[in-house]
């Protein structure tokens, strides 16, 4: 605010000038953009809550949150969301196992080892991974990863959680590597030089100084990437399948919350039926999960931020 005021003062040289009005107009434009965004978010929340309320008039929240069978459209009806949460978590944890080590190592390499020129080429290249449409990842999983898995483990189903987790993991590597690299590059060289002065090797500097010093940014990147994995839809719909179950065998088909929403969304369920309403309940649950992840990420960022200089 104060900065805006000084700018105004400098450019107009007095109140009530043309530039002043221009500034006010620009401020309105920006404000209305922000307003539309906030309004959209509120609208989405409202729709989700309203639809869920209708659902919870027929189904008890306790049954919904603790039941281990999910079959809202097949009799006998059961409305336990745990199998869907389970499928989502298996994919999320699996993708984290791929993305976190690979992404972090890539970030360390890019920030500490790679030459600036090489970094300039590799970083955007990696980010292309994030630009590939997710349905392409889904087909990649179905037509490449799953057949490969079937050769290694013959009992692998056409639809299975491993293939889904692998592609989602690959998909979110750029989020981890790019954001972590930003955080690591921001660590001041003084810290590195002090460690070198004590006789540390490059590896010791990277893992013992740079990573801890940039931890808040690194962890925030993990959490952002994971909320992306939780919300990922097309790839898991194609690769993981439509079989809600709590299974400890990741080679079996499962169903994520997003995949369920796709299934009901494109099916012929009539509007107003419980199956249709369950869409909102699952959507709300998903929203609550990603929202809390984002809040945790914000909290970590502010709690563990290191201030230099």
């Amino acid at each position, binding site marked *: 605010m104060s900065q805006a005021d000084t700018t105004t003062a400098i450019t107009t040289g007095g109140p009530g000038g043309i530039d002043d009005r221009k500034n006010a107009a620009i401020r309105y434009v920006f404000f209305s953009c922000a307003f539309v965004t906030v309004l959209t978010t509120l609208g989405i929340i409202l729709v989700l809550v309203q639809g869920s309320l209708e659902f919870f008039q027929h189904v008890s929240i306790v049954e919904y949150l603790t039941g281990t069978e999910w079959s809202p*459209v*097949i009799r006998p009806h059961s409305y336990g969301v745990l199998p869907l949460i389970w499928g989502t978590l298996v994919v999320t944890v699996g993708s984290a196992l791929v993305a976190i080590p690979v992404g972090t190592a890539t970030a360390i390499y890019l920030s500490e080892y790679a030459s600036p020129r090489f970094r300039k080429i590799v970083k955007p290249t990696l980010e292309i991974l994030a630009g590939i449409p997710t349905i392409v990842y889904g087909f990649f999983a179905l037509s490449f990863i*799953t057949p490969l898995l079937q050769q290694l483990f013959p009992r692998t189903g*056409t639809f299975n959680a491993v293939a889904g987790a692998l592609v989602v993991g690959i998909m979110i590597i750029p989020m981890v590597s790019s954001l972590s690299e930003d955080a690591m590059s921001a660590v001041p060289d003084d810290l590195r030089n002090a460690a070198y002065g004590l006789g540390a090797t490059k590896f010791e500097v990277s893992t013992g100084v740079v990573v801890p010093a940039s931890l808040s940014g690194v962890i925030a990147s993990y959490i952002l990437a994971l909320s992306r994995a939780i919300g990922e839809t097309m790839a898991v719909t194609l690769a993981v399948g439509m*079989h809600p179950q709590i299974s400890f065998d990741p080679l079996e088909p499962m169903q994520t919350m997003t995949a369920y929403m796709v*299934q009901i969304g494109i099916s012929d369920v*009539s*509007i107003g039926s419980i199956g249709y309403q369950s869409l909102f309940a699952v959507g709300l649950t998903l929203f609550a999960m990603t929202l809390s992840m984002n809040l945790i990420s914000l909290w970590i960022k502010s709690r563990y931020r290191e201030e230099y200089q």
Partner: protein
Amino acid sequence: MPTEPIADRAVDRSRRRVLLGAAGATLAGLAGCIARGYESDLEGEIRMDGSNTVLPHGAVVSEEFQWRNNRVQIPVRGSGTGAGFQRFCDGETHVQNASRPIFDDGGEDEGALCTANGIEYVELETALDGLAVFVHPDNDWCDCLTVDELARIWETGSDVERWSGVREGWPDEEIELYGRDPASGTFDYFTENITGEVGNIRSDYSASADTNVIVRGVRGSQYALGFGGAGYYYENEDELELVGVDNGEGCIEPTKATIESGDYEPLTRPLYTYFRADALAREEVRSFARFYFEEIDGEATEADIVEPGESLTWTQWAARRVGYYAIPDDQIDDRRETLAGAIAEVTE
């Protein structure tokens, strides 16, 4: 210097030719738009919605009808049988395609909605579809299942987990099951005719709204079993194997012959077209409805879906053209009578 003007003129001429060509093409295109099909004295809009399964059939019939009556507009949508009935009974559409009959057994259902809104309708069977049961090509043990075996595999709470549980001597491997999701007419028809009641099905199969997903699942595993419209089998013949169904008369596979003759039981299902009674008071709707049961004309016979000596009506022709099966000839007259009755009621 002297070459320049000549070059210029050459460019000019060729450019003019391109322009002329483009203008000609545009005119031809416009003319095509304006005079597509034949004029008739019919005019109006007939809104059609309903089953995705029946949509291609309805679209083909309406396309032919619009070609012959080019001032009639028939937008066709595929919201699904259930959602379509809701719109139909709300009075939003005039024609409803359905892959199952309307739910009307006195409860709070589609029929009640129609009654509440004062919508009367006429139900016409317009095509046949076969549901196929299929397995992986490497499945060399299962080429036929009895209805009873299918029921034991699919019913609610089924304890059949492995192929060996279906018949002795079959592999001791888990069956992977794929099928349509509960919101589809295919699901309703399959469960009703195999397990005896709509919706009577085990909950641990992979349910999909998209038959292509079912096909993908089955062709990916030697131990899979799936069901879906027979057309999907014929589109993927190399990657799937048909399973015959034995309803006490021996093993029968879904083919044109067995489906149109009614031998492929119980998985031959009728597909329906519903006309709103009050819409039939409009001449263009009436004539569209009759068109279904009129004989095809010379323009349509050249296609190889018509066998020599056969005379098909548009609905039969359209059914075969989009991969379904024709209702038997002897039912055509019944349909015409039903329709004539409904028309008589609103026009008198």
